[in-house]
């Protein structure tokens, strides 16, 4: 009898429970990036590590005037690459092309591009929307890569101008 009474009380309590009003709000659309952000960041680090190492040597040598053999030898190596047949193309690829690839894969990992039709009741035109996901590592890699590319472009431009003069 006691057990039955307890069960009744329990059932009553359960019936009188106030159920929270849940109104599920799903996103209108799942926006998928073209590439995986973590994988792109992992590859991106390896793509910019060599140009970053080279730039570090340059800054240490010319801007901080640390004239050790370590930093000076890096330039000799890059010059050696340019002079060696069959691998003379490696220098520009390492210093410019790899950071550009890093920018592309990381940009594809955090952006979503969509072209959709506007409401026909309005103008009826098309709408182009770009969504960018805030992923710290991907954005940081893009910025570092941009800095590397612009540094080398600036170097090539100033070098050409000084040669012409």
């Amino acid at each position: 009898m006691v057990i039955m009474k307890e069960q009744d009380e329990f059932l009553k309590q359960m019936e009188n429970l106030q159920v929270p009003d849940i109104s599920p709000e799903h996103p209108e659309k799942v926006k998928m990036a073209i590439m995986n952000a973590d994988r792109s960041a992992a590859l991106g680090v390896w793509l910019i590590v060599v140009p970053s190492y080279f730039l570090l040597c340059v800054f240490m040598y010319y801007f901080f005037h640390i004239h050790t053999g370590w930093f000076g030898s890096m330039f000799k190596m890059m010059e050696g690459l340019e002079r060696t047949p069959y691998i003379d193309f490696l220098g520009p690829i390492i210093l410019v092309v790899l950071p550009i690839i890093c920018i592309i894969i990381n940009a594809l990992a955090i952006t979503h591009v969509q072209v959709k039709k506007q409401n026909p009741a309005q103008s009826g035109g098309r709408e182009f929307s770009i969504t960018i996901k805030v992923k710290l590592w991907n954005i940081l890699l893009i910025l570092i890569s941009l800095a590397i590319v612009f540094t080398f472009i600036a170097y090539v431009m100033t070098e050409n101008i000084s040669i012409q003069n």
Partner: protein
Amino acid sequence: MKLNWFTRKGIIYWPVSIAGWLIWLIALAYAVYTFIDIDGRSHSVSDTLINFVFNLLLIGLAYTIIAYFTEAKKATADTDQV
């Protein structure tokens, strides 16, 4: 083609199959060969290290590119939600 040769932990790819281990061993052997070759031609310890670090980074880059395209895919899609 689905290849499961490597798995990623952070920015390092680790081999998980025979093919993966073979590539890892080839990369390691080439790094050792490069070190011995550079050491034979250089005149000081720093000269060896300067040239070897550059080559090691390039070997690491080539290894990572191979591993990137042959890594084990997760059950979820390869893309992220934005």
